[in-house]
């Protein structure tokens, strides 16, 4: 086995607080030396339905999700119905004795069953909201998880003294009641340590937001859309303290255009959305490309097409994001694979957007955006702001006449911003010459239109080699000589890496090619890996194997096998391992 893990899941109707139950357990674990990974599943509604929060705990860092449960706590019938088969032998099943009926025949052998009054233990109209506290109290009593640590976390989570007091009382009451019924105090299966450095519990959205703040982003705009909104909420929350303005827009079209206005006027700007909102932004994406305005946009994918599955995960937008817009222009598409990459690649994205004066898209998905992981504090000391050819008034004074789109060897022109002396210019969505003037129809320019058009597009694409030289476009993990190379991008990274560890434990040599920069496509680097690879397995969260198509188009190589999953749920390491073994057998 790769590592010791303990997996607990809390389930109930929306509004019962099962998500915060998971967060409290994970935070408490993180303060006592353990590592946690939280995956949430919830439908698109406010009350009712089924919310589940799965917390995977370990004594080693975790990057993925697994479904075989050691503990299941449920506050609604539905959350039990869907999970009977996920209970491991020896697992603990806790359910609300009044509202849930367990079908003993369906409970796997060896599972310990504990019906406890959880919801009814709470009086008044806040009954359901606080039932999670009773559930965690029972969880601690049944598993040996330190209840004092939960209480400590609660003290930080609830700001209202009365709410805190009621929750603490429920926690304690359930803990005492359930403990009294136990013959011996259980020992939690993972080791706690007292003097561990605290860790953060972060979602991908949190990490991207923090990367933006660190990068000096001063303007954000957007329209609410799950799962991207978390970034906008984070930035709105911290706007005043970091001197940042968040503007909610009337639609995503406005959002992208506001960001372009901000980028043109000289600040670093970010937006966040999902596929549907990004669809509305596409025309403006082309505007940013044509006018060479730096902007950063996060596209957190969900199931699609159309409204699709608003709260579930998918990797179906890769082709769309890489090719979106009429015409041709270079753009950056970065797909971070974990929490660290969410932070550091977002920081880098702001530098790249300004150095190369183009739009940059961070492509995540619901699983990465919403899942929380315990992470050590970021080491941000070495991070340096680079703004490329953004000029000051001194430079402008010495370099008249100023031309915004002057032809240069590297394709990047000097950029002045409104308000500077000597930098007046036109930035434009039209195809244009060095001075930004649109040639068509003007007597002085009409004759040279074909040359101006060609030169303008050549200028944009001269940036590409320098971009590829500047970015960590691919990463290869695992043994250099491998029988199989798994190929993937984005949020599958954690599950694939864990599958590699499991494979190694079984004597299989498997490597992993992570394509982190998808546009401009790192064709040479990918080709070099494929040239040496014995066999390849594509792992992607979509139906058509979009990365595989992109690799074939750019390198001529075809992946040998694929594991495509498009059922709206994330990949799990054990299933990837099974597919690896199938391919290698």
């Amino acid at each position, binding site marked *: 086995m790769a590592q010791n893990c303990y997996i607990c899941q809390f389930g109930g109707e929306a509004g019962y607080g099962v998500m915060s139950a998971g967060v409290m357990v994970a935070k408490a674990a993180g303060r006592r030396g353990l590592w946690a990974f939280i995956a949430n599943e919830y439908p698109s509604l406010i009350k009712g339905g089924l919310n589940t929060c799965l917390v995977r705990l370990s004594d080693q860092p975790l990057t993925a999700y697994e479904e075989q449960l050691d503990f299941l706590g449920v506050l609604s019938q539905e959350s039990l119905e869907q999970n009977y088969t996920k209970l491991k032998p020896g697992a603990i099943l806790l359910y609300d004795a009044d509202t849930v009926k367990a079908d003993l025949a369906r409970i796997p052998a060896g599972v310990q069953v504990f019906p406890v009054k959880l919801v009814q233990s709470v009086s008044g109209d806040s009954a359901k909201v606080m039932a999670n506290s009773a559930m965690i109290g029972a969880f601690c009593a049944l598993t040996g998880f330190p209840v004092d640590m939960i209480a400590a976390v609660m003290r930080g989570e609830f700001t209202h003294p009365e709410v805190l007091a009621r929750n603490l009382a429920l926690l304690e009451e359930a803990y005492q009641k359930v403990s009294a019924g136990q013959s011996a105090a259980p020992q939690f299966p993972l080791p706690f340590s007292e003097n561990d450095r605290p860790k953060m519990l972060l979602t991908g959205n949190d990490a991207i937001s923090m990367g933006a703040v*660190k990068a000096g982003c001063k303007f954000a705009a957007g329209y609410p859309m799950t799962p991207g909104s978390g970034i906008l909420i984070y930035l709105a929350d911290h706007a005043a303290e970091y001197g940042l303005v968040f503007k909610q827009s009337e639609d995503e079209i406005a959002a992208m255009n506001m960001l372009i206005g*901000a980028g043109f006027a000289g*600040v670093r700007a970010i937006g966040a959305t999902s596929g549907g909102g990004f669809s509305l932004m596409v025309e403006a994406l082309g505007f940013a490309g044509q006018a060479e305005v730096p902007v950063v946009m996060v596209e957190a994918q969900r199931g699609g097409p159309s409204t699709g599955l608003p709260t579930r995960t998918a990797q179906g937008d890769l082709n769309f994001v890489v090719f979106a817009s009429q015409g041709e222009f270079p753009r950056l598409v970065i797909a971070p694979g974990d929490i660290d990459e969410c932070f550091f690649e977002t920081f880098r994205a702001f530098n790249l957007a300004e150095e190369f004066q183009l739009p940059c898209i961070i492509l995540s998905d619901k699983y990465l955006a919403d899942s929380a992981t315990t992470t050590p504090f970021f080491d941000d000391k070495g991070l340096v702001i680079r703004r490329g050819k953004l000029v000051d008034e001194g430079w402008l004074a010495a370099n008249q006449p100023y031309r915004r789109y002057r032809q240069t060897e590297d394709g990047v022109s000097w950029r002045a911003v409104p308000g500077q002396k000597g930098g007046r210019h036109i930035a434009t969505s039209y195809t244009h010459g060095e001075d930004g003037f649109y040639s068509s129809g003007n007597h002085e320019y009409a004759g040279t239109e074909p040359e101006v058009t060609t030169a303008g597009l050549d200028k944009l694409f001269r940036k590409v080699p320098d971009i590829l030289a500047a970015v960590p476009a691919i990463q290869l993990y695992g043994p250099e000589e491998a029988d199989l190379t798994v190929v993937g991008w984005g949020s599958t990274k954690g599950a694939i890496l864990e599958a590699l560890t499991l494979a190694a434990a079984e004597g299989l040599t498997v490597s992993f090619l992570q394509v982190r920069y998808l546009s401009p496509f790192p064709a040479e680097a990918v080709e070099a890996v494929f040239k040496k690879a014995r066999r390849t397995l594509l792992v992607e969260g979509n139906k058509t194997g979009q990365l595989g198509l992109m690799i074939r188009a750019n390198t001529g190589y075809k992946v040998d096998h694929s594991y495509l999953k498009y059922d709206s749920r994330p990949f799990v390491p054990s299933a990837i391992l099974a597919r690896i073994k199938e391919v290698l057998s």
Partner: protein
Amino acid sequence: MAQDVNLNYKSTWCPGCGNFGIFNALKKAFGDAGLDLEQTVLVTGIGCAGKISQYLNTYRIETLHGRTLPVATGIKLTNHRLTVIAEGGDGDGMGIGMGHFIHTARRNLDIAYFIHNNQIYGLTKGQSSPTSDLGAVTKFTPAPLGNVERSINIVQTAIGAGATFVARAFTGDIQQLADIMVQAIRHPGFAVVDILQPCVSFNHLNTYPWYRQRITPVASLPGYDPADREKALSLASLWGEKIPLGVFFTEVRPTFADSLPQLAGPTLAAQPLDNISIAALMEEMA
């Protein structure tokens, strides 16, 4: 006239186009308002109107069709010390860009918005626009029926949506147009000017003589009081035998930027980016 406002590019507007009057009035307004051209941004849409930014030597951004106001919003919030002027046609602003118009008005951003209203799509060669009169015969609304949709009244819509300076002018009177432009630029808030502009090539209904027969100073009409929203809306509803011109409504209300403590001091663009500490953000997550 402001110094070195002219560029040497030849315009592509038709001879007699109402845009020439707007162009000349805008240049005069830049001078009369004493604008520093390096602290001024002209944000234009796409269409004949939008081309005005190609001929004026200030900071300019030629946006997408219909998207002037969100771009102007981003610029204004990034550097709230700049004078931001948005311009576009009636199709640009009242058709594809209408959503932005309403929301920019209710936000009361300090932006002057000049709408070149020729009641037709000119650059695409003569289709009906949201401000085309009932019965107007165009390429998309052929005879005998002509246009059957009620037209949008820009002045009324702007007052209703919350713009804090709303006026109408005529490109045939450059002096009055420039004067209203100066007032709009100086107004602290969202200032809308509906500029009546003949399209000599494609609009054969709303011609120079047609306008001249109808235009009337709004200030001469009974009940005129630009501080009174109800009265302004009532006068704004007039469109037919009489078309009132002038300032319909003014109000001073805090702008969107005024509400943000982040913009009380230096602009966002002037803030330093190096060595921002996120230690507190990390602690908060532990």
